[in-house]
């Protein structure tokens, strides 16, 4: 990671994930909003992502700017979901709460640890799905060509649960003795 500031480090991950950085200040509904970095989704994504650095700006100021931006988007009937990534010190709870009411808030800390940073913003990143397994085998199939009737009988009880199988098993074991009725 070459970037020197947390903001830049966040931006680099997002860009890597096919988000597009757009120039600031951002102009919406004729108003200008100055943020360290702004990104939008490039491929099939309407996301609008704002990255701020709480170390550089007061959290109150950040709140004002983000709420202003959200209102402007509403005014424009924009359907873009707004995401705020806060680097640097984590804002106080009330501030985070009021921010959460207008946008998705992700706290990235100082973004110095790459995996942690990825975790923090992962909701914006594409899913990395490993090659899925082949289909599962189908049900109970321990069958051979000359499957014994005994096996069939036992398999038939499987849906009834272990007790049903057990009861059938005991029946089957005792069955051959039915012919040898009684003690000699």
């Amino acid at each position: 990671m070459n970037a020197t500031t947390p903001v830049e480090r966040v931006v680099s991950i997002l860009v890597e994930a096919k988000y597009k950085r757009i120039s600031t200040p951002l102009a919406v509904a004729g108003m200008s909003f100055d943020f360290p970095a702004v990104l939008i989704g490039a491929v099939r994504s309407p996301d609008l992502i704002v990255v701020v650095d709480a170390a550089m700006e007061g959290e109150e100021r950040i709140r004002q700017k983000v709420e202003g931006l959200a209102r402007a988007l509403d005014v424009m009937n924009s359907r873009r979901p707004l995401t705020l990534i806060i680097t640097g010190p984590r804002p106080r709870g009330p501030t985070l709460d009021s921010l959460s009411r207008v946008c998705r808030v992700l706290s990235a800390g100082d973004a110095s640890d790459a995996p942690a940073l990825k975790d923090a913003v992962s909701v914006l990143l594409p899913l990395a799905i490993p090659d899925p397994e082949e289909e599962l085998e189908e049900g109970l199939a321990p069958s051979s060509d000359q499957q014994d009737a005994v096996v069939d009988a036992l398999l038939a009880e499987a849906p009834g649960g272990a007790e049903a199988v057990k009861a059938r098993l005991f029946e089957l074991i005792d069955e051959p003795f039915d012919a040898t009725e009684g003690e000699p």
Partner: protein
Amino acid sequence: MSPILKNISVENFRSIRGEINVSLDAPVVLIHGSNGAGKTSLLSALELALTGAIPSLERAERGYLEHLPHKDAKGGRGRIKLEVSGLDGRKETSLSVTRSAIGSPHLLDVSASRFFSERCYLAQSTLTRLLELYEDRDARRTESRLTRFVKELLGLDQFDAIVDGLQPVGDVRRLREPAPAFWGARQDIPDIEQRVKNFREEMRSVEAEGKTILDRLTATLASLPQNQVGDPIDLAIVEKELQSGNDETALLTLARARRDLTAIIEQWRGLSTGPDAANRESVEKEDSAARAALSEWKSATGEALDGVIEELRGWMPNLATSDAVGADRACAAALQAVQAELKRTSDLFDRDETDAKRASDLQRAMEEARARGLILDEQIADTAGVGEGLAQALSELASHIHSDDCPVCGRDFSEVSSTPLGAHLSVRIGQLVEAAGRLQALTADRATTGASITAAERELAVVTSRRLAQELRDELKAKRARFEELRLRLKDLQDGAADGARLAQRVALAARQLANLRTNDQAATIMRQSVDKLAEQLSQKHLDVAEAVDAGASRLQTVVQERERVLGAREAARRAALQDVEELKRVGARGDQLRRAIDGAQETRDSLVGAKAEADRRIELAKELARQTRAVRTKIVRRVFNDELNAIWRDLFVRLAPDEPFVPAFALPETTTGPVEAVLETLYRSGGRGGNPRAMLSAGNLNTAALTLFLALHLSVKPKLPWLVIDDPVQSMDEVHISQFAALLRTLSKQMGRQVIIAVHERPLFDYLALELSPAYLDDRLITIEISRAANEKTVAVWNPKTYVPDRAIAA
């Protein structure tokens, strides 16, 4: 072209009343409705049309079919129509649902149905179970809830049913109670074999015993006269022979002969103790001597005695003669009789004298009494005329005398006497009373005297009549004199009579002895005859003339004893043989019994062994089945619970809970053979293990973990069906999670190409998701469906497609 759910129409199904018809033809379908409006009904209708069953309902209630049609449905019938594109084969189905049956056909084949139910459709009830996963594992239970959930989700429960159900075959002892016949046979077979062995041993000993007895019998038979025994020996014939040919009769005869001989010998000995021949002469001599002495005595003393007795018999005919009772007794009796007669005679004389004296006394007394009577008569005549009656009349008159005037004549008494009249009267009365007394006494005396004369007269008559007549008195006198003489004669003869008696006794003794001798001679002759008869019977020679009876009898006795010994021995042998025959029969019967028992036991054993072999085969089959099932199960578990699953789960969880330091994970089964037990654990994001999720995660994050687990299971396999149907997953996620969840859904839809159908009941969430999942590009589409109820209780579903609108706020 990947499969897409197009259209669904539901009529009178579960809580949906009337008919609703909605389009599903969009990458994302968002369903909203308050609780009970029919969201879950719509989604389960979708599952039913696809798979022909609703496993999530089935798990809750087996008889769920009955509740499938809406309760007010006409004819109890509901209907579902579904249209799908991109599937091979069927594109559309319309099936009716009654309370007892689900119509066909449904759209998916068996494996696709399984896939849908397990990995595409997260029913609300299933999610509820997912939430239970994190409860503490109950140490008493063999399965954690998670394990059960996973097994149900993947259909592993049937594998487990087989494996657990077949577990008893692993150890035969576990079959003891439940399979009593099998267990019993395991015990019985050796028992029966042991019994057969015992029977065989007994059989051998019985056969040996039979052989011994048979040998003995053969030997015995050889010693007996009969020999029709058959070859080999026929027991029936032998028995008959033995019973017919016995020697009892001969033995009886012999016994009788022996008894007779013994009696003869005994009797003979009795005879020999009597007077023998040597004595005979002296006995005869004594006899004649005694007779001579007796005759001599008779001519002297005897005659004299007889004469006396004869004379006496003239008076006393009952007197015994000496011939009748013996001389001494006859003499004594005569003497006694004579003395008694003498005494009687003198008594008679004595009384006659007394009577004579009394008669003279009486006559004198009578004379005196008669003289006194005369005197008394004179005195009575003197006193007569004085009456007692006059005295009484005068005394009554006394009360009328008050003066000297006489009350009778009225004359004055003083004129007659100087004595007052009263005194005169009383003297007169006294004189009269005295005279009366004297008369009374005289009269009594006269009567007494008369009576005593009468008594004396009467007694005199008696005494006089009793006196002996004179001639009788003379006769008695003569007889008394003669008897006195005879008495003296008898006294003299007394000793001689005793001698005579002794002589008579001596003669009698000698005569008796002679008679005895003669009787003995006769008995001896009879005995000889008996012995000769027995000798004839025994075919022996007669008694020799010189041979004594007892010697001859002893000779015969020896013969009898010898014959008895022989016959007895033969009889004993026969009895022993008969006994042996009985023994042989018994042994033979026991042998037959044993043979039958052996055959029976053998048969039982064979059938038991056969049955046990079949049971063993079945146990082996069951073992093999259990083994195979276990193997398949293990394979499946290893495929499902692998690192990929954990990786995907972690990724999904982190997206929804970015601030959570822990992530949930499955502890993977380490061996292939161990039991399937999916254990949950948490990991620190930075590495290292945490604890149980329940302890480590907040409630909201637990829900998140459950939801992401389902998504991870969906994503970890090749998507047979690219559908995700989620029923109201968000119950308690906080807002942070909801926004993350929305982003995740978008990712699943847009990036992973899943058709997402999601139902929610919260209006704000619905609005938020509607915004977040808005179409992002051309041809992207969102369908929102709002389900509610009309005033007439009919279900109303309004669906609304939202299409892409380019964003005007920020140019891309």
